[in-house]
């Protein structure tokens, strides 16, 4: 029994790492621009397809393909910022919400057009054999995902705290006008934020490829969870996304075991609604006046 609980906990934490990974970019983008990227899941999907084809066509290992996928999605993020986000930055809320909703529909269906609705999986030699330790089973790709998430969080943290660009980005988050008055070209940091945010979800895509199939609507499945994670952790809080991801992972793992696997989403959507009622600013979010 105790072993069971430990196993569920490990599964939950590792799963949480995956959720955190998908959510970090979302929270970063919100923090800088107060825009919810409804197309976030589609960028995950693109990251996964890119990884898939890199392996299929050139035999590049998914973990190695990170080096290609991350920069490629960074560029895609910058292009998105230019074409989709910039025109609605000062527009009404409806426009801000529905421009990324529209982008989500567009990307999903372009994927359907190019790659059909087939499920595509990447079976790597390390996809199956699990690491066994004292009767506990740990899946290798999940462990990798967790480690990569951790590295990503640390790297982002160092970038934001230590570098000039990171500090300027934080200043933009705190107060756009003051940042502008200090000579920061905030437009440039919007590009940086969306680029980084999308690159993060691209990394997530590459890391997920050895364990999950990719198809045009893969993103929808993950992105709903990511929204829950981000609201739970507190919109705009990087650490919040990480902790929120872990909590949702553990909740999912236990509810799947105790109730029914189908109901796991219901459980954390209920958690989501409870948070909205009790603490709308999330665990680590700032209270707003």
């Amino acid at each position: 029994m105790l072993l069971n609980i430990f196993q569920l906990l490990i599964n939950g934490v590792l799963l949480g790492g995956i959720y955190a990974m998908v959510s970090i970019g979302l929270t970063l983008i919100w923090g800088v621009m107060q825009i919810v990227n409804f197309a976030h899941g589609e960028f995950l999907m693109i990251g996964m397809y890119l990884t898939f084809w890199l392996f299929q066509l050139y035999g590049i290992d998914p973990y190695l393909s990170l080096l290609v996928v991350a920069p490629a999605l960074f560029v895609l993020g910058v292009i998105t910022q230019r074409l989709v986000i910039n025109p609605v930055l000062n527009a009404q809320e409806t426009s801000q919400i529905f421009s990324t909703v529209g982008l989500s529909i567009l990307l999903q269906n372009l994927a359907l057009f190019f790659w059909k609705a087939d499920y595509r999986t990447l079976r790597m030699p390390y996809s199956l054999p699990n690491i066994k330790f004292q009767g506990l089973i740990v899946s290798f790709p999940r462990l990798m995902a967790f480690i990569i998430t951790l590295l990503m969080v640390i790297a982002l943290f160092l970038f934001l705290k230590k570098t000039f660009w990171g500090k300027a980005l934080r200043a933009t988050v705190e107060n756009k006008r003051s940042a502008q008055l200090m000579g920061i070209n905030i437009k440039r940091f919007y590009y940086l934020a969306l680029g980084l945010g999308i690159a993060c979800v691209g990394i997530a895509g590459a890391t997920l490829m050895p364990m999950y199939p990719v198809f045009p609507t893969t993103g929808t499945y993950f992105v709903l969870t990511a929204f829950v994670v981000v609201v739970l952790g507190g919109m705009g809080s990087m650490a919040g996304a990480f902790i929120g991801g872990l909590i949702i992972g553990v909740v999912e793992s236990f509810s799947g075991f105790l109730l029914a696997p189908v109901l796991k989403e219901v459980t954390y959507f209920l958690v989501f609604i409870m948070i909205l009622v009790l603490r709308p600013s999330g665990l680590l979010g700032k209270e707003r006046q």
Partner: protein
Amino acid sequence: MGWRKFFYRVGQPSVYVSLVLLVLLGAATQFVQQPFCLNILVLILFYAAASSAWNLVGGYAGQLSLGHAAFFGIGAYCSTLFYLNFGLSPWLGLVVGGFAAAVFGVGISYPCFRLRGPFFALATIAIAEVMRILSLYFEKVTNGAVGLLIPFKPGIVNFLFRDKAAYAFIAYLFLLIVVGISFMIERSRSGYLLCALRNDEIAAEAAGVNTARFKLFVMIISAFLTAAAGTFYAQYSSFVDPDTAFSIHFSINLAMVSIIGGMGTIIGPILGSFILTPLDHILRGWLGGFSAGLSFAVYGLALILVVTYLPDGIIKWLRQGLFPLIEKLPRVRWSEKPSAAQLQLASSGPFLYPGREVLPLLSARNLSKSFGGLTAVRNVSFEIKQGEILGLIGPNGAGKTTLFNLISGFLKPDSGSVVFQGGEITHLHPPHRVVLTGISRTFQIVRPFNNLRVIENVMIGGFKSSRKVAEVEEKADQILAIVGLSRYRNYMASNLSVGDRKRLELGRALATDSKLLLLDEVMGGLNPHEVTEMIQVLKSIAQNGVTLFIIEHVMKAIMMLSHRIVVLQNGEIIAEGGPQEIGSNRKVIEAYLGEEYLNVTAR
């Protein structure tokens, strides 16, 4: 509405043109024969009606729901399950489903209405998704992913018809009902108030609008109507399954139809449906053979382009091009314009000079409020007497606005109490409840309803005491005259200058018929001439028996106006007394100008 008024309205070009179009649309449902076209017509009417229902919440109340599929699915499943299991006519099932959805709507409103903008949209997506999963999970009832098939037994009671024209006609009637309801809401008090709360919820609360109630009100109606659409769709396709009933794409579609046509307008959703629904079918027929995804990709692209470059929808083009042309059509005169009932000018009450015998109108006892480590207001007690003008001054950051927020219900004090006219108002929340007791306020940083005209801004405050639009409009005109904004009556509030916005802010507060007005720097940013004018306005308001509590930095004004002045520094009252007294108070000069100044003048 009297017959005279009715005939007068019908005589107007915009009214008779819309009526003719509606009748033609009704006739079309009977004359279109070709099955493909008939099917498209049914869907156009269906989406127009369902999106109009969405538009009540999404457009009029400004709550961008992406989870209306939850109501739709509830309606579809309710009527179908009752019909299949108990033989209940889907017509009755429609009513049952409608009420179920309305109750569900109330349930989800409590958590969701606390959220703004994208977060509301996210929460509603999650709720519809929960419903989809639950409908998959309870397989025994819903038949899971396989769905429920409604056996084809045509008949009126069964809501099943051999002839598609019957569905077209029902959809048409449904559209008429939804449009009728939207029209009634738009033209009534609720329409104005919804528009105000969509603009700025905080300012709406300050004008006495119970924002939560109005949002809930439209949510209930919208949920019921969307559920009815669900029943209709289930009957039309004789089939329900979780993926169509609770699909996020359906929710997005409803929103999209309204957005493309024009949100928060009556014809927006109809217009949107007439464009999108056929386009959707043509694209699917044309590109569908080519590839499944492409037609929807075009859809997504269209959505991005519309919200970016035409955020007000296609109705904007019509407003510029077609509507003025329609107005040029001849006006049919059956009867003269009925004159609105004349309203008497507000009675001027006696101007009470404050004296010891006058009862306090408001008394604050030991109010304290801190934010984190900073104590903004510390143990403040004071009284406002009936009919007086009480000034509140103090250096920046002294806690003046916080004190206003505590009295007007925008902040809860940590301790202490506020008693107004003998009743405790300390913990009244949300703020409109304070307005209902007879206190209203203005904001230091003005918050006009930018998308409303000047007159309508004032009317929002006036709806506190009357439901009749014409009556409130009349009163608002009088108030515009008092605050000197009559010539800008029909301007959009966003076009006013800073000084005029301050007047508007005052006018809106005045319209609530409050006994006590809290005015937060209504003279800030005015030039000397305007200040003199404003002083006269405030004096005349006070002479009408309204008590004023004013924060002001313009010393000339505060000295001329106030009967008494309270001085606040670092959250504490450091002096209280008549203008002369305060002007020569050592502590006050020190607080404003610093000790050095005092030393210099002493020398």
